[in-house]
């Protein structure tokens, strides 16, 4: 969680300094969700996420260097600088994006699970999306397919209460999202997305259910983003008091407090962890700055395959 926080704080600075461009959507405030869920995944499991994807990529184990280089548009980036902040893909850890069409990744996750099901592989596909996606048809089409075909998908709805600038009760007729998902005969549970332990425990139960052949599970993680929708967003639609109130439940502060209370770490230890993370962030920036631009001569590579079968092939 701390790695996500510090990485993104630096991204915000780099964006302001115009070193990182494009749209940058920060995950700050929501770190417990990706952390708690992804800790339950095995290396063979698959992950599909949205344009707010830095946290998922970091927790999944993609090197911070490669992510930062991607933010800089360098060839050393995880996608050669072609995807940027919103499109982090990694074949080695089975991260299938970084999808910036709201709801667009959900059918894809169902398809990954369908392949596993047809090939008899006991894998889970975790699919993250925001509550805004639950107003999209693609969520409903995909949830229906997953339930109908009993597929091993973990749907994780990160309900941060705002679809860009539109509040939940202004975009959903039923604001209890688990109730909506449950209408597809999918076990649907809500949990505290600010508490990484609660998140981990709920995800653990969900993943166990899926691995035991129980079909898809839907989790609603109740969370909040402390920053604006993107670095481009002036954030005029939220009450400052509301933001401050949620910050009282900062997932990082909650975890630190718990570590202190249980005696697992004292201030010195926590400061040491922070210093280590800051050093990692510094190194990633240095790595990105020393990176290279992909030659323009290669721009048309990978529009179509070069003839060689790619990782989709290897995945089988």
């Amino acid at each position: 969680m701390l790695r996500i926080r510090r990485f993104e704080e630096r991204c915000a600075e780099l964006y302001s300094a115009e070193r990182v461009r494009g749209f940058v959507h920060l995950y700050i405030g929501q770190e417990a969700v990706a952390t708690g869920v992804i800790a339950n995944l095995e290396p063979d499991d698959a992950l599909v996420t949205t344009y707010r994807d830095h946290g998922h990529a970091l927790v999944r184990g993609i090197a911070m260097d490669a992510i930062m280089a991607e933010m800089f548009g360098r060839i050393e980036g995880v996608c050669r600088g072609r995807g940027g902040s919103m499109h982090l893909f990694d074949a080695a850890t089975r991260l299938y994006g970084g999808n910036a069409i709201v709801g667009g990744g959900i059918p894809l996750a169902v398809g990954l699970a369908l392949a596993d099901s047809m090939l008899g592989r006991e894998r889970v596909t975790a699919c993250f999306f925001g509550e805004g996606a639950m107003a999209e048809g693609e969520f409903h089409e995909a949830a229906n397919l997953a339930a109908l075909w009993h597929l091993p998908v973990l749907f994780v709805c990160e309900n941060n209460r705002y679809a860009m600038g539109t509040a939940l009760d202004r975009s959903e007729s039923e604001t209890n999202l688990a109730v909506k998902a449950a209408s597809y005969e999918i076990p649907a549970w809500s949990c505290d997305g600010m508490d990484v332990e609660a998140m981990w425990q709920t995800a653990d139960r969900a993943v166990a259910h899926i691995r035991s052949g129980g079909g898809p599970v839907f989790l609603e993680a109740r969370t909040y983003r402390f920053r604006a929708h993107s670095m481009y967003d002036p954030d005029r639609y939220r009450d400052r008091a509301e933001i401050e109130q949620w910050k009282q439940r900062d997932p990082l502060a909650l975890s630190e407090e718990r570590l202190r209370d249980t005696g697992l770490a004292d201030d010195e230890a926590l400061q040491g962890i922070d210093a280590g993370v800051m050093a990692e962030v510094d190194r990633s920036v240095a790595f990105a700055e020393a990176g290279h631009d992909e030659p323009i001569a290669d721009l048309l590579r990978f529009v179509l395959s070069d003839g060689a079968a790619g990782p989709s092939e290897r995945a089988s």
Partner: protein
Amino acid sequence: MSGARALAHPKSRPGPPPEAAARPMTYREAMREAIREAMIRDDRVFLMGEDVGRYGGGFGVSLGLLEEFGEARIRDTPLSESGFVGAGIGAALGGMRPIVEIMTVNFSLLALDQILNSAATMLHMSGGQFNVPLVIRMTTGGGRQLAAQHSHSLEGFYAHIPGLRVLAPATVADARSMLWPALESPDPVIIFEHGSLYNSSDGAGDLPSGPTTAGIEHAAVRRAGDDITLVTHGGSLRLCLEAAEVLAAEQISAEVIDLRVLRPIDDATLLTSVSRTHRAVVVDEGWRSVGLSAEVAARIGEECFYDLDAPVARVAALEAPIAYARHLEQATLPNVDRIVAAARATVGSRE
């Protein structure tokens, strides 16, 4: 194409034994045989779409396949084009070789997000990490009085998109032979089947029963000629061949090119022909403006300008939604008379 490698699989079985005698086939049967053969050759191949199973396919292409291959591999889907096309993309990423059937091109617009934003972009956007070996088949075209939401020819929409391969088998032989190389391709392939072709058998009595090597890269010269090139694809091929007969009676020798592959377009076959005949008429059932016919005409203009003896002419659909009433629909679509008239005018402009 590296077919053997792309399709190597522990569970793969050898191809079907050659049938004792070749037999005449309809376009529908040829497509069914192609699916059947692919299913037998590679266990990772499966067919998914609305009513492909118990109903036998909206146009009857998959009739009988459910009984042969079972529900897992002949997979009926709910009416959710975006959902099941997206699931096809995911399954392809996961190592399967899906054939997704969309009932008509008009319905495919509900899945355009998945086709454009995911299937076509993923390889490039991921820096070459994730290819999407997916085949999507759909019916296209008018002529059957199905009105404005079942009749359009939107091949040009898809041919516009980098990252896709777009095919339009216009003959029984191509219906039989283009699916397998499409499945061998590591990239997403869209196959357009013109609805008027399903019952046709274009004298394909000596069609080989196994796959052919026609591939999915080249256009085909369907009739050789010297005076003018008619460039077309799909359902309009038949019209162009008829027009060429009419023109022959007038001592105008028309060459007919079937593009077959709408993306990437086989420039060599196209331009070689026009450079030799010095005249061209482009025939497309899609709308005229900003469409496939515009693209083909532009390529001829760019590459063959100094070889041309006349401006490139186009015969395309009139620019209106396709109406139900037969006379209105027929007036909208290209026909033999319009093609002949355009060819005559093009040849006549020489004198």
